[in-house]
């Protein structure tokens, strides 16, 4: 027999299951985290990190730096080889992924790993239904998710009749509807055009108003520095820098992480400015200032 889904094999039951759905202040605490894949590849190396409730953080770095491995620890998709991950008062070792789903919503890179309903609306309702959200509230949550993700016009469409970039929005919406206090996004900008990026920025604003903690893995540094007040730079399974956009002014950090600087940083460097502006507005302000001093 092939165990195509490993849950057919005997499992131990996970922890207790007394859920409190509204837990507004959930800090994330990662201590001395090591992780090695079964084949021996060491992906995380002694990572210690605290993320306060309500933060908005972008995790950046090259492929293979350990970004996705790191965030997969935040909802128990991966359990540490050594060290602990605490989501509020829960240690991820003691809770199943399904239980952790009440606290952490996770948007995967590949939407096709989860879509299976025949309409966008049903697909979005799946997560909250698993969390036993009452019928009346469920409708409201789905409607809100549809609106925030710009999917009202396709609410009854078959997800696979949508383009890949739209399907990606369906998976984002299905996490929005779960209304978790923490959200993890894996490469949310992939395939999005300007409208999509703007919608993403609006959604981040909305989450900010609701004090939702947002952690995003992204390759799009221009987007990251504009939308995320805090950056976490990773290289070789370690966090090598953490801070606002100015960490990218440091040539050595970029070099170690194997990253190209964002466009504005490159431009500022080319123009010989001492420090680089974080966004277009700051750039123009700096420009205006330098013109005035001329």
């Amino acid at each position: 027999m092939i165990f195509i889904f490993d849950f057919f094999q005997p499992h131990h039951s996970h922890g207790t299951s007394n859920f409190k759905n509204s837990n507004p202040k959930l800090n994330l605490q990662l201590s001395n985290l090591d992780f090695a894949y079964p084949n021996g590849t060491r992906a995380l190396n002694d990572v210690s990190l605290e993320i306060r409730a309500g933060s908005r953080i972008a995790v950046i770095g090259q492929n293979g730096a350990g970004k996705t491995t790191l965030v997969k620890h935040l909802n128990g998709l991966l359990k540490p080889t050594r060290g602990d991950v605490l989501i509020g008062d829960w240690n991820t070792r003691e809770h199943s992924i399904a239980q952790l789903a009440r606290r952490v919503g996770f948007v995967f890179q590949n939407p096709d790993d989860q879509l299976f309903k025949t309409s966008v609306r049903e697909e979005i309702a799946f997560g909250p239904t698993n969390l036993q959200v009452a019928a009346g509230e469920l409708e409201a949550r789905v409607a809100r998710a549809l609106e925030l993700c710009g999917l009202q016009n396709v609410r009854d469409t078959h997800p696979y009749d949508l383009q890949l970039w739209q399907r990606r929005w369906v998976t984002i919406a299905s996490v929005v509807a779960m209304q978790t206090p923490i959200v993890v996004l894996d490469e949310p900008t992939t395939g999005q055009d300007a409208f999509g990026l703007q919608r993403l920025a609006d959604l981040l604003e909305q989450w900010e108003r609701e004090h939702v903690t947002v952690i995003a893995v992204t390759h799009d540094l221009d987007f990251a520095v504009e939308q995320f007040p805090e950056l976490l730079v990773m290289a070789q399974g370690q966090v090598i820098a953490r801070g606002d956009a100015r960490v990218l002014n440091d040539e050595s950090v970029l070099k170690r992480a194997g990253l190209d600087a964002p466009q504005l940083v490159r431009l500022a460097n080319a123009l010989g400015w001492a420090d680089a502006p974080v966004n277009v507005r700051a750039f123009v302000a700096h420009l205006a200032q330098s013109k005035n001093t001329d």
Partner: protein
Amino acid sequence: MTFMERMQKDFTTITLALIPVAIVINIVVGQVVALLKIPVYMDSVGTMLVAILSGPLAGAITGVLSNLIWGWVLPPPIGNPVAAAFWGTALVIGFQTGLFANWGWFKNKLPQSQAIAYVLGAGMLLTLLQLFLASPTFGSADFTPLALTGVVMGIVLTVITTFLTWRGTFPPLIVIGGVLLGIVSAIISAPVAAQVFGGATGAGTDLLVALFRYSGLDPLTSNLAQGLISDPFDKFVSYVAVWFIVRGLSKRLINQFPRGENVTDR
């Protein structure tokens, strides 16, 4: 349309790309269902899909290749040489399903009253078949527990499908198709099981064969009786599953298949 023209029309690249996927679906679904220990095989779902979307010939070829690959290309524990011997059954499953699909049996077009009549008819046929196989006319032993199980299963499936039909979401003819296909595949499988394997295939259904042998039936008839009990259920359930899968596919994709019209315009 000549045979060659039909072949060319059915065997598009997308059909060829679908066949290996269908073979893997046969294997994966078959294995997962086997793990659930329910008395159906469900190992032809992929074959049926190809038959519906790309026609009877493509379905037949998928069936044959599926069993040969399952039997002789994949090693145990996934593969099992027993499967290879039943390539003929797989061929008929693919071909027959393709015909049913071409006749529009996988669409939902009948008026409700007629649809319910068909489903009830098929359900009754299934239930009566169980009764007959367990009656003294057929064997000679006391088959009361077997008959009871068969009849209860028949009634439960009839009730479920009638309910679905009543709600208007279900093409009733596939229920009949499932039962018919089950009877046909039992007839084809029995000689293989009896001659090649001496009546045993190493599966749970061997118990049924033993039971019929005990009642005094000859090897071939015992295997036939076992098939007539298991196969109609299996094909019936498989058809329901396949229908739900097809209903869940996007129209964009269905339209790309040579026989997409078999399931669209519902």
